[in-house]
């Protein structure tokens, strides 16, 4: 029987896009500027209906491109408003220039992002190439396994962004979550509003009593210091993310961390993955556990800032693990998540576990329990010494 966790929670059947729009309605930002793109269109479409119906007092700006969407959103934030937008794939690419500016100006923009493949070839389906491409822009990146997490992450994002003075994006996997109806627990409007609180910027452009300059030129004299401050803000945001998650758990009862450990504590083999595939991997882990195989899972929720020290600790005693990337860096070596994980282990002096990197699911290509079970089987062989870990980037379910 389905049940709620929060005493005042209400269960609803909603898609990822619907709950992201619902969170935005409850947050009721001052400004939303957006341009539609599949599969994120519904988020701002549903939200614009809330505006039209008078359910929110938000100023909705229908802009002519994603570049303008991000420009208008960050400008509104600079002026002192709480502002949000939503996009996907090519839309995020088109925002690229302004993503960096939002971070560099330390503006707490919140972006609902639906992960979709990058052109060419044109593909509307889910992979994480878009946000992985933006991983070095100075944005906090939080990924969701399902609609419930997308809703909860959106509510936390506003506070994280404003406390860290860093733009923050929340993702769902395109179509797999954005268009999948699931059971979601929603919280009362007033409780969400109370949790999110009022936006009180320290400095903002429309504060005429305390004028401030934004977007000035800084050459050899000050640029480096400001970029260091940006990087430091990302490091410092870990504490903020933890505190917001703690308060969220205290308020609504759901526990969130930088990553979820699923049967990892006593595991000998593990998969490290981001997003909806973690849910499918849990089914594989459960079946293997029934057979006595010590399989576990590490699901990344917060990718930027990257929780390197914690991950190194949790993977140190694993015999063999696989990092599954739903994006290919085309780097000539490995994919983004693997590179981060392995660097984390090396920096912590951990070198015992064997590791493999797989790329999977590009353009929405199927990733099934059977595919993931096969990865665990390979890891078992490596752990027992019956096989060597591949030193190349491997691929799942692709015709080569």
């Amino acid at each position, binding site marked *: *029987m*389905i049940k709620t966790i929060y005493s005042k929670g209400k*269960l609803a*059947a909603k898609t990822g896009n619907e709950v992201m729009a619902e969170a935005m309605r409850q947050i009721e930002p001052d400004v939303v500027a957006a341009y539609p793109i599949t599969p994120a269109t519904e988020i701002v479409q549903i939200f614009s209906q809330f505006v039209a119906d008078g359910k929110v007092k938000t100023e909705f700006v229908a802009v002519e491109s994603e570049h303008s969407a991000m420009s208008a959103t960050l400008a509104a934030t600079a002026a002192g408003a709480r502002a949000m937008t939503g996009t996907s794939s090519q839309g995020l690419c088109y925002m690229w220039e302004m993503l960096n500016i939002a971070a560099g100006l330390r503006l707490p923009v919140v972006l609902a992002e639906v992960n979709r493949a990058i052109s060419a070839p044109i593909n*509307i*389906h889910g992979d994480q190439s878009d946000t992985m491409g933006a991983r070095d822009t100075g944005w906090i990146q939080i990924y969701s*396994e*399902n609609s419930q997490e997308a809703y909860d992450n959106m509510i936390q994002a506003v506070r994280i962004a404003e406390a860290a003075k860093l733009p923050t994006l929340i993702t769902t*996997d395109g*179509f*797999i*979550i954005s*268009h*999948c*109806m*699931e*059971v979601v627990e929603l919280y009362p409007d007033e409780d969400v509003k109370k949790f999110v609180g009022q936006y009180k910027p320290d400095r903002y452009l429309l504060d005429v009593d305390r004028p401030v300059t934004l977007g000035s030129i800084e050459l050899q004299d000050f640029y480096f210091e400001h970029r260091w401050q940006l990087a430091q803000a990302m490091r410092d945001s870990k504490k903020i993310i933890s505190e917001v998650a703690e308060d969220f758990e205290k308020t609504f009862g759901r526990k969130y961390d930088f990553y979820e450990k699923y049967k990892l504590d006593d595991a000998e083999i593990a998969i490290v993955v981001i997003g*909806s*595939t973690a*849910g*499918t991997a*849990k*089914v594989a882990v459960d*079946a293997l556990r029934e057979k006595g195989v010590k399989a576990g899972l590490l699901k990344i929720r917060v990718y930027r800032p990257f929780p390197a020290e914690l991950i190194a600790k949790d993977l140190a005693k694993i015999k063999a693990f696989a990092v599954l990337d739903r994006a290919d860096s085309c780097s000539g070596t490995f994919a983004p998540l693997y590179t981060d994980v392995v660097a984390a282990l090396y920096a912590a002096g951990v070198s015992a576990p064997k590791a493999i990197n797989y790329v999977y699911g590009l353009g929405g290509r*199927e*990733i*099934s*329990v059977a595919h993931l079970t096969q990865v665990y089987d390979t890891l078992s062989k490596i752990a027992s010494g019956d096989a060597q870990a591949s030193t190349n980037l491997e691929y799942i379910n692709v015709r080569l």
Partner: protein
Amino acid sequence: MVAKMIEIRWHGRGGQGAKTAALLFAQAAMATGKYIQAFPEYGPERMGAPVQAFNRISDDPITIHSGVTNPGYVVILDPTLIETVNVTDGVSKDGKVIVNTSFSADEIAKQLGIDKSQVCVVNASQIAQETIGRNIPNTPMLGALVKVIGNLDIGGVLEDTKSKLSVKFAKKPEVIEGNLSSIKRAYDEVKVS
């Protein structure tokens, strides 16, 4: 795979409401206390082109997010799809195929090349015509599916569908009544082998 989980695949043509049926069915199942998933197959969307939609129903939280490849139940809104789409793909020997047709289970079983015991037939198009006044077989097929699955409460399904349709068709109460009686009739009339 969790044994208790039910997986369903809907076959229809663009415009026939396969996706809507999957969404309505999921909401109705949730109203009876189940965890649910409903998702369509997204491709180029054209009126009349073959489309699919999927459901998962379970007593436990559903974490799997891959496609449905071995459905326990297949619902076919348009019988002409039998000739062009492999509608029994991945269906095991104890799976059920529910077809909107005027033909008998015997005839459909022969056409599908599966055992008669796996085939359930109901003339949903005729029921829709007589209750709603239009050939929209998706809501009656919902009733047929509830009957074939067996352990879902039809009263709860009707109640939830009524509340959903009441919002959508507030100004057209006759549409709500027609849809509800179509579900009830298909529930009663589907021939389960």
